[in-house]
């Protein structure tokens, strides 16, 4: 029982990170039909923004030293600004290009970001100890101790998802965004400003990336210019198996991928654990063979004739 709970918490916290990243990707895909492969690099930049820009091997905290109430908004602002710059310099000029061109554009953007990071910070991973007391355990029940951070990750994810749902359903701009995601041309014909909706989606996607930056870097304690890439890969898989274009699907997919990873990590024989991701991908391929439309069918594709 205690063991099961431990595994569950591991799965939920990893799934939370994937779900948050997948939401950021899914939101942008909704309005732009863009699979933003630079999303992972947005996450990386959010983490790097914590330290003094320098190539020194030893990281010195900059924003990372601020009080959390100042630190978090600062990181959010950095990533949102980066995302908006990406929109102006890359996505907007490609607005009328095919989705494939847009996707390749986002790949290119990702490489540019990674190389800028190498230029400024150097290519070697750096240790960054921030809020390390969060990794201390909390006793959930007798015999079950989980790191405080896991609870925070799950909690933050839940809160962000609730806030996002409230925004999308209860506010004018949220409703506009959902309309634009379903039928962009019709939304414009009704007077919804295309660029405004897109910028808003880009900004929210950036906020979600910033949240992942913080949670992820506190958990790993390491900065690496490629740290966002694998996260992005799993989040992308999550959106695909969840059902492209469905935000619920992105969340379901995120938790599914997280759960499968943790289960394999826990139950695979130790000598096979290095191949964990191979098994994850195999399961993904299997799911796509059985349900190519994804686990959750997007409502737009279920249109009544």
């Amino acid at each position: 029982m205690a063991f099961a709970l431990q595994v569950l918490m591991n799965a939920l916290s990893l799934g939370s990170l994937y779900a948050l990243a997948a939401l950021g990707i899914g939101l942008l895909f909704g309005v732009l039909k863009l699979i933003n492969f630079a999303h992972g690099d947005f996450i990386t930049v959010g983490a790097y923004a914590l330290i003094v820009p320098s190539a020194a091997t030893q990281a010195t905290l900059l924003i990372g030293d601020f009080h959390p109430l100042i630190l978090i908004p600062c990181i959010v602002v950095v990533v949102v600004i980066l995302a908006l710059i990406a929109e102006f310099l890359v996505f907007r000029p490609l607005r009328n290009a095919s989705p494939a061109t847009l996707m390749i554009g986002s790949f290119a953007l990702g490489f540019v970001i990674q190389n800028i990071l190498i230029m400024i910070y150097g290519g070697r991973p750096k240790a960054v100890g921030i809020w390390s007391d969060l990794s201390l355990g909390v006793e959930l029940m007798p015999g079950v101790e989980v790191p405080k951070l896991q609870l925070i990750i799950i909690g933050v994810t839940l809160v962000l998802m609730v806030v996002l749902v409230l925004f999308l359903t209860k506010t004018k701009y949220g409703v506009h965004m959902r309309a634009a995601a379903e039928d962009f041309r019709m939304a414009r014909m009704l007077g919804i400003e295309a660029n405004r909706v897109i910028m808003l989606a880009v900004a929210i996607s950036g906020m979600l990336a910033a949240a992942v930056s913080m949670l992820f870097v506190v958990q790993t304690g390491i900065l690496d210019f490629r740290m966002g890439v694998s996260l992005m890969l799993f989040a992308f898989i999550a959106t695909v198996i969840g059902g492209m274009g469905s935000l619920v699907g992105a969340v379901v997919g995120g938790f599914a991928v997280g759960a499968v990873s943790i289960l394999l990590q826990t139950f695979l024989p130790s000598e096979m654990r290095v191949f964990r991701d191979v098994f994850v991908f195999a399961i993904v391929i299997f799911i796509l063979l059985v349900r190519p439309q994804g686990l959750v069918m997007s409502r737009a594709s279920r249109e009544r004739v």
Partner: protein
Amino acid sequence: MLEVKDLEVRYGRLTALRGVDLSIREGEIACIVGPNGAGKSTTLLAISSVLTPTAGSIIFDGTPIHGTRPEEVARMGISQVPEGRHIFTSLSVEENLQVGTATRSDKAEMKRDYDRVLETFPILGERRKQSAGKLSGGEQQMLAIGRALMTNPRFMTIDEPSLGLAPKIVDRVYEVLIDLREKRGLTLLIVEQSSERALKAADSLYVLRNGSIQLGGKAADLQDGKAVHKAYFGFSDDHEGEVMI
């Protein structure tokens, strides 16, 4: 109110419209009829600036609107109920209507228009909270018209309002459209495949075939049908005096 002059639209190498002229007066119901692929929808999409004409001009109330953006055209008071209705199926009925008010900030009048739409289409009120994707075809058509009305337009274009609907519901839709002109002074441009109903409702009629206007004029002058028939099919049928379309 709307002057279209020498309009040409191309899809790649294909010319969909050439030399189209329309002149729509304020407060009238104008109809464009024509066979499939004649360029009817293309004309409406060009008016809404979804398509950019390769030549010609579209002047609305003295302002050129060709080559602008769809959201600007909407802001100027032109609203479109497009082919296939394009309801937001993942939104509720209420939210669909709310999207129609995107350009507006006149809260009190928005509420008034909302109440008016629900009064015109009581079924939309009953289904307010339901997902719009669950509505029947006729209800979706009403929602599409209601949503267009929520933009508070002065000029509304409707692409094939009768498509896929039972005759009874088509009657109701036309009743509403005629009513909108009578009571609100709305100017309407309706596109239909069949000219029979269009002739009844319209003040002026245009027959579009192969991307150009074959015939245009006051509907009252075209009631005999022979000229319309010839313009529509490209040949006259002497055995049939009636319009069979």
